[in-house]
């Protein structure tokens, strides 16, 4: 039995479905990210779990108990809001102590637990400050949510207000803290890098529906739809048609053909082939599957990003900055890739696809 279970949960505003038939099972101690573009229903889902938005239908179970209709102040979940929603008139200590005070925890124990929570987020030196005197609002919000030892921690884009460098640091710290306390966590984010780096599982949502649930590595390597291929990481997408060639199936890409790894395809079918930029390699011209001309190159620090014009259109290719000289623009190059890294996506419109 899963710890937190959403069954057929939907939210309609009039005829418009913000979340449609959401099914999700979260295990105890798991860190699950809800990932999607804005307006995909991820925040609405979180708010239904928190109790701030009432589900139109479906059930939400926490540890076997039906909490679908429970009031938010009876659910006991820890929530970190996007704006942090700290109490500006209370000190950091009082902010964190508020939840324990509401639970009538005795004063001595309260002090101990607040100090422990503040130490966990490394704010123990700032307990007497007020939120506006502090830049680490997200840490206060995290301590305030964790101190009540909630069964589930809900994070609503907790790091989206931070600059890039601090966000990366906080991602790792957030994951460390979550591992340490072992709280089941659900995080809403629109940042795929954040979802990939700290989650146990990612739920991709699109137009109110779940389109794929997988572990980060699998999500990246085996995106199920065209949308996910480009939303989670970068991808080169090439349209083609399946053709039978003897016993084998090949993808007819117009300019070239490609042996297909997948089996459940029929000749004549329209498909899209996807391959990640880092899976492509440069070879000598004429030695690879394709030749092309380097149109542009961008230096990204740890790697180079090339745009190469080929008969299949422009392909994007990344190579690690390994200290070797980079390929110059206008160079004619050969491009190769291992067949097993090509992903085959069916071409017909996927559910909830966006234009």
């Amino acid at each position: 039995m899963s710890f937190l279970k959403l069954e057929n949960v939907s939210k309609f505003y009039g005829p418009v479905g913000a979340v449609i038939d959401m099914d999700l099972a979260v295990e105890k101690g798991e860190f699950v990210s809800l990932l999607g573009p804005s307006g995909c229903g991820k925040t609405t889902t979180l708010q239904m779990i928190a109790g701030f938005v009432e589900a139109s239908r479906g059930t939400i179970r926490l540890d076997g108990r039906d909490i679908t209709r429970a009031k938010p102040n009876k659910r006991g979940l820890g929530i970190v809001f996007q704006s942090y929603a700290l109490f500006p008139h209370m000190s950091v200590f009082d902010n964190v102590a508020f939840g324990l005070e509401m639970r009538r925890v005795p004063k001595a124990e309260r002090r101990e637990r607040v100090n422990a929570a503040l130490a966990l987020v490394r704010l123990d030196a700032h307990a007497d400050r007020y939120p506006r005197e502090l830049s680490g609002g997200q840490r206060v919000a995290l301590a305030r949510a964790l101190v009540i030892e909630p069964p589930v921690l809900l994070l609503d884009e907790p790091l989206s207000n931070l600059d890039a460098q601090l966000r990366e640091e906080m991602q790792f710290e957030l994951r460390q803290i979550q591992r340490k306390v072992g709280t089941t966590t659900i995080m809403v984010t629109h940042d795929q890098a954040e979802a990939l780096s700290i989650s146990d599982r990612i739920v991709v949502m699109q137009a109110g529906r779940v389109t794929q649930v997988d572990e980060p590595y699998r999500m990246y390597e085996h995106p199920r739809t065209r949308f996910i291929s480009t939303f989670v990481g970068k991808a080169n997408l090439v349209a083609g048609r399946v053709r039978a060639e003897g016993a084998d199936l090949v993808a007819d890409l117009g300019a070239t053909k490609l042996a297909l790894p997948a089996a459940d395809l029929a000749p004549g079918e329209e498909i899209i082939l996807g391959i990640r930029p880092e899976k492509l390699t440069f070879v000598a011209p004429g030695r690879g599957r394709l030749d092309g001309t380097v149109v542009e190159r961008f230096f990204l620090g740890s790697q180079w990003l090339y745009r190469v014009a080929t008969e299949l259109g422009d392909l994007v290719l990344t190579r690690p900055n390994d200290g070797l000289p980079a390929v110059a623009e206008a160079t004619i190059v050969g491009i190769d890739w291992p067949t097993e890294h090509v992903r085959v996506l069916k071409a017909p419109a996927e559910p909830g696809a966006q234009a």
Partner: protein
Amino acid sequence: MSALAPAAAPRVAVRPYLLTAPALLLFGTLLVVPLALTAVLSFNAFDHTTGVKNELTLAHYAAILTDDYYFTVFFRTFWMAGLTTLITVLIGAPEACVLSRMRNPWRSIFLLVVVAPLLVSVVVRAFGWSMLLGPEGPVNKALALLGLGPVRFLYTPVAVVAALVHVMLPFMVIPVWTSLQKLDPLVENAALSLNASRFTALTRVVLPQVLPGILSGSLIVFGLSASSFAIPGLLGGRRLKMVATVVYDEYLHELNWPLGAAIAIVLLLANLVVMLSYNRLLEGRYRKRLG
């Protein structure tokens, strides 16, 4: 850069004075000068046959401080202003809360309704109240239907306080509404998620953040009520005097301008003392936290 900086410094120092000059001039001529003239006048001796004399005296202040009549008027003025302030807080703060939760267009419409009294002359509104509360007015007719005898509202504190509350309400609603606008709407949800009841969330989280708005609203309302003239003049009548109406009497009926000036100065000082101590009492506690 370093060579240019000293040359630029004097220009920077002059500009603030130039920029504030128009406002300073306006305040100087319209507020400070008349006030100073009033203060000087209040120390001038007065004789009923010859008028204002060119001698200095403290007699008017002595009269105000020793005469029971003035004490009664001052005391009445301050308790009525205080009561008006209390009632406007009790009505205005929840009203602002409701207003801030409304969605457009209703919010704009009701904000206009709240502010609308300011668009009508105080005198007209005072007459409106006197018709409403008069012996033949709708309120007394309604009471008669319920079998309750005619109640005298006019020329009692009830009429004056009711009308003052009506006039002052916008001055409470608007500052409270402004401070509610600054409130993160999610803090209430945050409190709920930490097991607080709706009532606790309101009193422990929302109210303290709105307090600066309530504080500035009550300062405005108290100050304006304590020095109000038209409403006590029209609804308090000859018997229920407030300080401003007494000042008016001294100036225009007794023609004792120095005594009127002295009363006005005492009102100003008393008002100042009340407002400053109230401000210190409340704001001191919250300034540090809310900035």
